[in-house]
Structures are given as structure tokens and as C-alpha cells.
């Protein structure tokens, strides 16, 4: 089986000219965890994860504390929201380089990338670099596990 057989072809993406605010609404409306960023030719130039965009909700100083288990009521921090100006920044400021697979790759290639880099979703590109789909850990995992039912049955 190849990646193109288990990927989702209906992939949401965002143009590199969009703002953080626009990206946030795509995340929220479509219930997704990773948003590929494409240029005007439809080529993938990077990704924005839920984690990166959610960082705006957390105050900067959270990074200074190794853990926050001992806080049971965040008080005034609970109501802090990103400031409007931040949301109008271009989405590419939050973008990170994409780890991708090609549609003709095998499943093991995707699985190894996900495990090594602790990723949940991999954008799938065609041989000429255009975004053609996305494969999640669940898509991939269930596709692999589905093949297990034949193990041990082949000889019999």
C-alpha cells in the first residue's frame, strides 16, 4: 500500500498571505491539528501546528517554569487573550518547515517520520511539490493495523 491509498485528499490549507486570525478560524471550523501553508502555485512552503498557534493564548512567562502542576486557579491569567494586533500578523510568522511524504512513498516511510519527529500529521506532496493530501497518525495507523489480520493466515 502507498501513502496515496490512505491519505485524506480533502486537505485544508492556507495561502502564505493569510493572517493568524484567518488561520485560527480554519483550525476551529474544521477541527484540524495541522494547517499546511501554500504559495500561489499550490506548492507547500511550510506548516502551522495547533501547538504553535495556541502558544499565543499562553503568556510568555509560562516557558520559564518547568511545570505548573501546583497552580489550581490561574486567576487573572485565565482571562488574558492574545492582543488584536498579534492576530493580524501574517501566518508565516508562526510557520515551521514541513516534514512531508510523497504520495508514492510507502507507509513505513511515513510511520518512521511520525515516530522519530513526534508528529501527528504529515502533509503529502506530489512529485512536483504540490500539496495533494494529508495523512494523520490515525489514518496511517489504522491502515497498517488493518493488514495485521492476514498475518499467520497466508500459509493456511
Amino acid at each position, binding site marked *: 500500500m502507498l501513502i496515496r491509498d490512505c491519505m485524506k485528499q480533502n486537505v485544508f490549507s492556507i495561502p502564505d498571505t493569510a493572517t493568524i486570525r484567518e488561520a485560527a478560524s480554519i483550525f476551529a471550523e474544521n477541527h484540524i491539528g495541522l494547517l499546511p501553508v501554500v504559495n500561489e502555485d499550490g506548492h507547500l512552503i511550510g506548516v502551522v501546528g495547533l501547538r504553535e498557534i495556541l502558544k499565543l493564548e499562553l503568556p510568555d512567562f509560562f516557558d520559564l517554569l518547568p511545570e505548573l502542576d*501546583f497552580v*489550581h486557579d490561574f*486567576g487573572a491569567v485565565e482571562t488574558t487573550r492574545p492582543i488584536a494586533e498579534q492576530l493580524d500578523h501574517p501566518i508565516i510568522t508562526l510557520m515551521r518547515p514541513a516534514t512531508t511524504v510523497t504520495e508514492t512513498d510507502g507507509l513505513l516511510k511515513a510511520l518512521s517520520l511520525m515516530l522519530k519527529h513526534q508528529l501527528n500529521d504529515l502533509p503529502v506532496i506530489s512529485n512536483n511539490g504540490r500539496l495533494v493530501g494529508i495523512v494523520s497518525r490515525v489514518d496511517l495507523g489504522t491502515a497498517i493495523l488493518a493488514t495485521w489480520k492476514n498475518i499467520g493466515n497466508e500459509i493456511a
Partner: protein
Amino acid sequence: MIAIVLTSLIFLISLWLIFSEKLNRTITSMGGAALMCGIGIGMGFYSEEQAIAAIDFTTLGLLLGMMILVAMLEPTGFFQFLALGAGRISRGNPLKLLIMLGTVTTIFSLFLDNVTTVILIAPVTILICEILGINPVPYLMAEALLSDTGGVATLVGDPPNVLVASAAGFSFNDFLTHSLPIVLVAWFVALALLRLLFRRELAIQPPNMEAVMKLEPREALEDWKTARRVLIVLGLAIFTFFLEEWLGISPAYVALSAAAVALVWTRPNIQETLRHIDWSVLVFFAALFVMVGGLDAAGVLDVLVNALRSLEHFPPVLLGIIIIWLVASLSAFVDNVPITIALIPVLKGLGASGMNIQPLWWALVFGAGFGGNGTIIGSTANIVVASLSERTRTPITSKLWNKRGLPVMLATCTVASILYAIFYSVFE
């Protein structure tokens, strides 16, 4: 003569590189030390043996021993526990919070490195203030200013004290009888002044006082077993410091043995513990010692001492006060360690020429200690709280420090000068 000019040049250029922050201070001092040693060997005035002998291992040993103890205490969450406890006890009252956090930081900086204490307590301070919905600036500045002030009180409180103690032969108890009383007065003056300077911020009733009561300090204490053992050893070490003269041992031996006992008792991953040690500080000290040793061997210090010999006829109390303010003004802008290391041989030279330098050593301690409060870059603790505050909505600026921190420096130096003059006979 050539040796004097060359070594002075190397030293001055190194100081300039350090003070202008053109080059990292440890790298600069390593380069300067190697150069000075090389020229000394080539011209025959400074040997490798002399360079090694110039390194004050008492200072390095004491610093290393205390650093290891802190490195063991750091991951236990003990400092977070204390800061959160201070937050709860204050019940969200701004003035109480300022006093509690300032006191906790000071008590620890009396015995431990100020910078580590501040690095661990400041993030929790920001958290408490953000939860309360108040501006963290007064609390962060109070922690830096009060811990810098408190650090002057004990031999182990601040590196310049260690240097002076080693050079002048002062014991732990000498600091308790000479420095601690003045620091106590200065500390309360600093606190009162902070209260006055931040009166507007402290008058605001925090909108979320009850949230602070839901903080659970115990949950921050990751490893109470280790924390308790290290604290017991630290307590024993401090007790042994008192007996140092009676036992005839150096504080370096006490600190290193304490570190050894704590390591044997808790058996941590030693690589991990040693990674927490700021080796660059130790290398910086050692290299500076080698450089100053080179100046000494080349005869630079004799020239300086001869030039300063006329000071003998100067009123001694006034000379002491001038040293307090001169050293304080310098350490407001630059690290107080190179200043102290550079001044030690000068004072020693004056002593060798027959002057009573006992009171001048104490003037050096006060100036180097209190001076750091003057500017945002005056001490490492200041730099740390300022850079941490950049992660909040109200970063501490240099301008703000000049308005709130500089008065504290001026006040503590004034207190020190007055008490120094009144009780001059104690320092003789």
C-alpha cells in the same frame, strides 16, 4: 619597564573588552592570562609556577563547593516551594507579598549565590503576580535589590566578599560582626525606600486575591527527600563556618566537604549536577588571578602603590568613604569581581608600605556590594530579573531602574558611609 607597559596594556585592553561587552568576559580573561603568561615567560619575569600560585584556590574552592550544593537543591523544587509559600502567606496583599518575597530571596542569598536564587524565584514571582493580576515589576526589582544588599552581610553572600576575605584573612565571623550590622540597617532602609518608590503600584488591590490561596507549594516540591538532605548539610556547613577560626580550617574546605557529604548522602547523577555549575565563572576568576599575578610580577603594582603612597597622610575615615563611593560607582556599571580582583593587590601594596588597610578592605566590601544596585546592568541579579521581565507586559527598562533602583543604591551607600564613619574604630 617594557614588562610594566606590556602587562598594563594587556590588562587594560582586557578590562575594556569586558566592560564594553565586546567579548565574553571568560574568553577575554583566558586570552589575557595566556598572553600575559607568555610574555612573562619570554621576558623572564613571570613563570608558570608563579601563575599557578597567583590563583586563589580558597576562593575557587568555596565558590565551587557552594555551587554544587545549589546545583543539588535546584531541581528539587525547593525554591519554587518557598516562593509559592511566600505568595500564600501574603494572601495576595501587595506589600506583604513584596516583604515576603524580598525576605525569602535575601535569606537565601546570604548563603547561596544571588543569581541562582533570583533565577529560581523570579519566574514564580511573575506567575504569582500574573495570577493576582498585578504588575510584577516592583517584586522583581525588590528581589534583585534586596538580595544584592543582603549578600554583602556574609562571607559567602557575594563573590567580592570571598575575594576580600581570602586576601585580608577575614573569617566568616568577621563578616557577622563587621558587615552584617550595617547590612541589616541598609536592608531595612532599602525595603522602606522600595515601599515608598512603589507606593502607587503597592496600593492597588489585586483583582484576584483568592486565586493565590489555591496555589499548592507542596506540589512544587518535587523531591523533598533530596531537598531535606541538602538543607541539613547546608545548615551544618553554615554552623561550621562559625567555628572556622576555632577549628583552624578554611571556608573552602567547609564548602567542599559539605558538597562531598551531600553528594555521598544523596548520590545524584553527578554529570547532571555538574552541568548546573557555572564553570565560566570559575574559569573567569582563575584567569583574572593569573592576569593580576602577572601585573604584580612585572612590578606594575609597586608603581601604583608608590603613586598612592601620598594617601597615607589622608584622613583615614574620609579615605574609606571615598573608596566606598568610588568602588560603588564603578560596580554600578561593571561587574564587581574584576574591580575587586584588581583592587586587592593595590590595597595589599598599600598595606606593605605601612598603611593600616583593615578599614579599607571593609570599604571595598561595601562599595562592591551596594554599588551593583545602581543600574540595570550593575549586578547579574539585576540583569536576570530585567531579562525575565521581558516576558511580561511590563519589561523593566534602564530608565525605570534609574528611577527606582539607583535611589536604593544611593541610600544603602549613604547608610554604609555614615555607620562606617561613626563606628570607624570597629573596622580598624
